[in-house]
């Protein structure tokens, strides 16, 4: 019975995706034979070293980059207003817009009135806990606050799928952990699907229902592992640490190096 549900509720279905760039007459393969199916409401983390094509995969899903071969199907929940929204690594707020106007940016594509957009933006800011800073300029915010605004900007368009491109990697540890917990809280309040790209294996196993390990050049799926650990999870618990070791082994083909807070 669960099979039927899974099959019907695949929001993202990628089959045999190949991607290569041509530059100066030379072809560079970025992704090879990639299959990935993501269920509705699932939190999936993609881990891999930098340059393995993780971010490129998100851009293929957004339609910003065309695949060279294979099929990419996105079947968003029809009740969502937008199929997808992307949170960038470096917040990428528009410096000439106030915080609230940045959050409302994606809504300007819709038919909403100015008042409706402001209201929706205010709502999204409240979700990320920054309603008080609505009228600040981006340069007046800390790194963590900027990333919250970036998250609010993506949430404001009410996407079925939230794509996140190493969103917390530039933040200090305590800010990062705070935002990770907040992301989980926001995700559990809604029925959104999240595809979260990171190079931090500990972050991946802490956050996700399922971890997809990418490796090699061109990048391909090395393994997928479910994280069957109840939430709220304990950082650095034995179950998560063991899983992180396994993912490491997946990526490097069993040649896992040792080390505690290990980042690729």
């Amino acid at each position, binding site marked *: 019975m669960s099979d039927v549900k899974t099959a019907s509720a695949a929001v993202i279905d990628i089959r045999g995706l190949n991607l290569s760039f041509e530059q100066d007459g030379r072809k560079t393969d970025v992704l090879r034979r990639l299959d990935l199916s993501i269920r509705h409401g699932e939190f999936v983390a993609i881990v891999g070293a930098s340059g393995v094509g993780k971010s490129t995969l998100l851009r293929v899903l957004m339609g910003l980059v065309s695949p060279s071969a294979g099929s990419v199907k996105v079947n968003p929940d029809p009740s969502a207003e937008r199929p997808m*929204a992307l949170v960038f690594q470096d917040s990428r707020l528009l410096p000439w817009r106030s915080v609230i106007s940045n959050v409302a940016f994606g809504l300007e594509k819709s038919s909403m009135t100015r008042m409706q957009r402001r209201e929706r933006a205010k709502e999204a800011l409240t979700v990320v806990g920054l309603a008080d800073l609505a009228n600040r300029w981006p340069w007046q915010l800390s790194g963590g606050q900027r990333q919250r605004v970036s998250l609010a900007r993506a949430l404001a368009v009410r996407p079925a799928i939230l794509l996140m491109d190493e969103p917390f990697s530039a933040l200090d540890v305590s800010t990062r952990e705070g935002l990770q917990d907040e992301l989980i809280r926001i995700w559990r309040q809604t029925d959104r699907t999240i595809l979260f790209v990171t190079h931090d294996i500990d972050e991946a196993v802490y956050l996700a229902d399922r971890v997809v390990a990418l490796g090699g050049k061109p990048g391909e799926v090395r393994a997928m592992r479910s994280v069957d650990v109840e939430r709220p999870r304990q950082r650095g618990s034995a179950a998560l640490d063991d899983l992180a070791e396994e993912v490491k082994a997946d990526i490097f083909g069993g040649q896992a190096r040792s080390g505690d807070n290990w980042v690729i």
Partner: protein
Amino acid sequence: MKNTIVRRLLPLIGLLAFLALWEAVPRLGLAQRALLPTPSDLPAAFLRELSSGIWLTAVGNSLFHYALGLLVGAGLGIGLGIVTGMSRVAEGLLAWVSRVLRPMPGLAWVPFAILWFGVSEAGAVFIISVGVFWIVYFATFGAIRSVDRDLIEVAQAFGFSSAGERLIKVMLPAATPGILVGLRTALGQAWMSVVAAELFGVPGLGSRMMQASSLLATDIVVVYMLTMAALYGLMDAFFMFSQGRLLRWRPS
């Protein structure tokens, strides 16, 4: 404390010393007063020009040429700069044309201005806008070209995929500081062109200066020179104020 007061007063002291020296040179007989009027001659000359209504008419005419020339030149410069900034094809097509036309100073166009427009307001506006155009064009082109690609990707990621949407949502606001730098330079350049354009007879400050100098009324010439300095200072201050409002999103 005392030092800062003295430092604040230094510009004023310098100005007073300059005026004193200027006043002294003709009075001591080192220069003919007809060739170098003294500062003390100027208020009377200014009042004569003002009460006869000539001053106001000349200033009005010049400001009209200035504003229209600036508007036309800057409008075309921003427009074309956006096109070549966004399109490699347009940039390629205009690469050599602009290289040939750019070094020609606005004044080199005076003969054609007279042939095409006669000694008329249109001729003056034409000369002023030629100078303004190139400054604003290159500033705009550079500013559009250097817009952060990452911000353009944000626009695309949120569904603003057409060139027009990208321009309005990201390119233009991001390029505004660079365009304003060009505009400010153009503001000064246009003022110089005003005098040049009017020296050949179109009514305004420049032509009034030529008239006065041919009658050896050098005090009047100086009155208009100072008028220009004052008008330019006023306009630059107004520009800086507007720019501050427009760019208030930047850390000061």
